[in-house]
């Protein structure tokens, strides 16, 4: 990056880490990455810099939503004939193309904003950022 963006805003490293962990949870290491994210969240929840808190709140909220969606998908599968039925693939693929990819998209925008040192609230599933 060029000189301008190198002088980082307070909390930027944590903000970037939050978004990166969020994406890692969706793409590489589910579970483990989320645990790390939660740990970061609870450490900086009260007295972290505003930028860090903003990104932490978004990523934790979105991760929880990701969990909720997974539960819904599984309930739908069970309700419509169980894991052996022909509909399973349909739900799984719809989940990946609509749900999972939208969550990734949010994470990518969030990461870009964090790297630019800017606060950003995830639309719909995100949480308010202060100031």
């Amino acid at each position, binding site marked *: *990056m*060029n000189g301008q963006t190198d002088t980082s805003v307070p909390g930027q490293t944590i903000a970037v880490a939050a978004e990166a962990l969020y994406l890692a949870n969706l793409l590489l290491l589910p579970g483990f990455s989320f645990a790390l994210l939660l740990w970061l969240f609870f450490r900086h929840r009260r007295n972290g810099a505003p930028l860090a808190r903003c990104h932490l709140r978004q990523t934790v909220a979105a991760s929880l939503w990701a969990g909720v969606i997974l539960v819904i998908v599984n309930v739908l599968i069970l309700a419509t004939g169980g894991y052996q039925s022909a509909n399973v*693939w*349909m739900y799984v*693929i*719809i989940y*990946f*193309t*609509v749900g999972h*990819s939208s969550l990734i*998209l949010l994470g990518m925008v969030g990461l870009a904003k964090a790297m630019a040192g800017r606060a950003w609230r995830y639309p719909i599933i995100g949480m308010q950022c202060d100031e």
Partner: protein
Amino acid sequence: MQFQSQAVAKPYFIAAIGLFIGQILFGLIIGTQYVIGDFLFPEIPFNVARMVHTNLLIVWLLFGFMGAAYYLVPEEAERELFSPKLAIALFWIFLVAGALTIVGYLAVPYATLAAVTGNDLLPTMGREFLEQPTITKMGIVVVALAFLFNIGMTIIAGRKTVINIVLLTGLTGLAVLFLFSFYNPINLVLDKMFWWWVVHLWVEGVWELIMGAILAFVLIRLTGVDREVIEKWLYVIIAMALITGIIGTGHHYYWIGTPEYWQWWGSIFSALEPIPFFMMTVFAFTMVNRRRKEHPNKAATLWALGTAVMAFLGAGVWGFLHTLAPVNFYTHGSQITAAHGHMAFYGAYVLVVITMISYAWPHLQHNAPASNGRAQLLEMWSFWLMTVSIVFITLFLTGAGILQVYLQRVSDTPLPFMVVQDKIALFYWLRLWTGVIFFVGLCLYVYSFFAKGKETLASS
């Protein structure tokens, strides 16, 4: 604008965008027919609308390439265009010929069109992407030759830069390879084999040269990075494109009756085809990160970086997905192919043409290096709307493709084609609605040309 004659690019860009709108409208029509079979039937049958969709795509991209060349070549050669009058005349010939062809598709049955245009004298019609009547094809050749003459003379008389030479090579290759559309042997294997010399060697060969040259031209202006650095990248990129792309044609020779060794040649060389696309991504980001000035046209930078990323995703990643013979054995001609076709065409060629328009338009229209802030903001919104839409269109088609391949070809109890199509209709609905959002993005793009800013811009 440094040279008066660069202005001939303007009508080309306008026509390109106009035909782009037409392409998407017909995309929405066939997208609807996918889920409501008798939509607009019998007025506009699916096969006709599909032909209009794909042919408009090719024609508007050609308009875009030509406009780009008319803008770029004089500036690189540091002299006026050899003949601006010829360029304008060719514009009208190409536009009228194109329009007549589309009207022909829509007004009469295809067989009638073939009969009245004398297809039996020199049969070339009836093959995907090359559906144009033979006389239209001849018109295309004439326009292409006169166009090459015009920019060739400009380059010969002027400064010979790497960008100009690469562009001219790409455009010459485009014209020469199109000649294979006149070769239409009775033998279906030979027919298909040489059909790909147009289709594949265009998009995975000479068009990459055109794309590389346009990107390099725009990046030099936007970033102020030394020409020598950018030229070195360009050399390596086009070398890789040709080394991998030419023999990579073999990835279309797996199942058409050609010898079996093509499964090896095609798989190995086409598996390397993502390399030049990946290099273009690294190239664009490296140049922007090393920029030596802040160019006021932020929108053009976004389009340029978008091209680099989306071309790699669409051509590189989605191409690789189905290019190895053992995979292609299952996925050949499925919705996976369509998914890849949409993202690759959009990511590489739609975006590179819009990058050029975005860079050149402020110079052509306002004699300024950039449009006003509001216009740029709208442009950037349209970039995101169209790009995110094509990503989702690609994902839905990929989803449809995975199910299609599984249910129809992999499963122990394979289902018939139409039964499967019924089962995956939900994906086609999702594709259609995403297409509507794409269209909204396109409308926003058109609107950005007319948006007035709050502040007035100093002219350059």
